[in-house]
């Protein structure tokens, strides 16, 4: 099982390297009121759309960690990163797009299904290492973790069924080895 997980991680890393238009930033900030608004504004002012955003407390609760997924013009993004670094509450901002970092997401998919369909869905779920976190007579919720492409693939594979809700956390990122995130 451990071996399988490692394989998945390696595949994730290679896939991640190939996607250059998609950027994954890690922004380490002081946990102060308004900091999220300042960061969001830095993107919005330049017409940049934040595709995913995860904010959570850091190891030390005086700091927070933001993992931000964006795509767009690299020169403009370079400018945005510099502007983010300029914010007084931003301790550092690192673009992890090209450094082979661990980038993961969690997804929940709610599918309406009859008992007849359930078997096929669970088969797909098993292939993707999903967990069934809710099960009723006519519905189930699958939980999937992994890189974004893996979640996209599951979404595609389940599209023949009656998917009624999809919730994704957005990407979280961590640099490998002793590198700083």
């Amino acid at each position, binding site marked *: 099982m451990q071996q399988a997980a490692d394989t998945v991680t390696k595949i994730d890393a290679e896939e991640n390297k190939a996607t250059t238009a998609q950027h994954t930033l890690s922004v380490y900030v002081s946990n102060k009121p308004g900091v999220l608004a300042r960061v969001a504004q830095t993107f919005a002012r330049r017409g940049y759309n934040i595709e995913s955003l995860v904010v959570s407390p850091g190891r030390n609760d005086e700091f927070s960690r933001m993992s931000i997924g964006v795509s767009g013009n690299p020169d403009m993004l370079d*400018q945005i990163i510099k502007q983010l670094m*300029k914010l*007084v509450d931003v301790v550092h901002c690192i673009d992890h797009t090209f450094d082979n970092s661990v980038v993961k997401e969690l997804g929940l998919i709610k599918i309406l299904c009859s008992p007849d369909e359930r078997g096929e869905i669970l088969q797909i779920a098993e292939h993707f290492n999903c967990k069934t976190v809710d099960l009723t007579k006519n519905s189930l919720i699958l939980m999937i973790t992994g890189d974004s492409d893996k979640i996209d693939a599951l979404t595609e594979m389940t599209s023949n069924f009656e998917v009624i809700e999809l919730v994704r956390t957005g990407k979280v990122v961590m640099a490998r080895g002793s590198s700083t995130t």
Partner: protein
Amino acid sequence: MTTTGLDGAQALLKCLDRQGIEIIFGYSGGSVLPIFDALETLDTNIKFVLVRHEQGAVHMADGYARATGKPACVLVTSGPGAGNTISGIMTAHMDSVPMIIITGQQVTWMLGKDAFQEADIFGISMPIVKHSYLVKETNDLPRITKEAYHIATTGRPGPVLIDIPKDVSQNPFTGELDQEMDLPGYQPEKASKFDPVAIQAVLDALKLSKRPVILAGHGAVLAHAEFELKTFAETLNAPVTATLLGKGVFPETHNLSLGMLGMHGTAYANKAIVEADLIMSVGSRFDDRIIGQADKFGRNATIIHIDIDPAEINKMITADIQCIGDAKAILVELNKRIQRLDTDEWVNHLGGYKNKYPLSYKMHGGLKMQHILDELYNLTEGKAVITTDVGQHQMWAAQFYKCDAPWNWITSGGAGTMGFGFPAAIGAQIGRPNETVVAVVGDGGFQMTLFELATAVLEKLPVIILVLNNHYLGMVRQWQELFFDNRESGVDLHGNPDFVKLAEAYGATGYNLKRPADVRKVLSKALEHKDGPVLINAEVAKTSNVFPMIPAGAALEDMLIEPPKTKLPKPVGST
């Protein structure tokens, strides 16, 4: 030291006083009652100036900082009071001017409930401040004040806003007045540690250059780098041009000075940039007013960008060599290792342009703004502190009032804020009480903040208000003439008041100036007047245009040195 007996407002003022804040420009109101009361109950060295509109207070603090290098404080009430500061804060932010703005706020338990005079000024001001605070705890005031001052004045300076709910300023203060700052994400001291590799790259590039131009900006002024810049230029024998805000950091009467470059800069400065093989910016951000068409700017030159703010590098122009740090520290380092370049031919060549395309104006055709500004320069020997508003008069003042020292030229560059000039002059005069301060304003901009005449009169400030009155919004009219078939739209200011009578109504002195022959006489009279403010209403030619001119977005080589003979296409560049 635990302090008892103070309330939050008193602790705030004590901290501002200890930080070295010498002056507060402000306007009272409900949510700042405790702070205004503390101004009365607490003995500090802080002077308070009551203004007539909050925008005026911010421009005064701005003018004070640009004339003295020291930050001032603005104190206004919540809601509309805070809202009225916005164009002032934006102006300061665009031009990197340090100041602390304290806004009153509704009590903390009413926040977000649309209470009377509640405005989310923390949110409203967010894009136009260097940093801001909404204070929730009275005992945090000393730390926040200290941080605000530090952030406003270090690195690339800028305005910092502190929003203080009324209960926070009214509650008893039970904390320590000496508190440590907590700014893990703010490290301006990094700017003093520049990269030796970059320094070497600059030196190597300089050695190869036969046609260098130094471009001095506001950053060089803010870094107090005037002496180092002069040494640098003279040692290399390299000509220097300046941005609008860099005026004076290199003496404009110096043989190596090319004056201002850009949209209404000198022909010789713009031609120098076009022909240069090396352009070295010291503290300029390559603003769109100076570069014109970005992809053509300096395309045959090595571009060196020295800036304290890493976010300015490669923003407008891709630099061949970037050098991040304090302008003065970097010039000190460079000056140790430079020698004279082989630039005699280049300097002579540019001297030819200076002779061929001098800044000039014709004396016939009515009273000219240029004539008045030229005469003002002569009478004050170029030593007055000049503030300007925005428009034609601003550009002519930049062209004809040469500055040989920094901190004497105060103008709204980045924001282009009309209404700035007069209140900025009040702030400058308060900061430098024994010097001649002249607000050069147009009839449009002056009317946006003229009510501060009351402030100037009450403070007995001998500020000179030179209203260059063409009864037009002249710069917009110029664009309509050149690019919109002379269809005047929304630019005719008929109905202007009698400015002399207006000055007199406020208790100031006023003079009219109508004939070219009277320019020297009227200016002299105003300059001798030391008993409070004096206004000159100069009825100038109505439809003069500013040249040289580079239409917005055009390349520097497409500069118009004189009025075009044919109709021009509408500019494609930024405004």
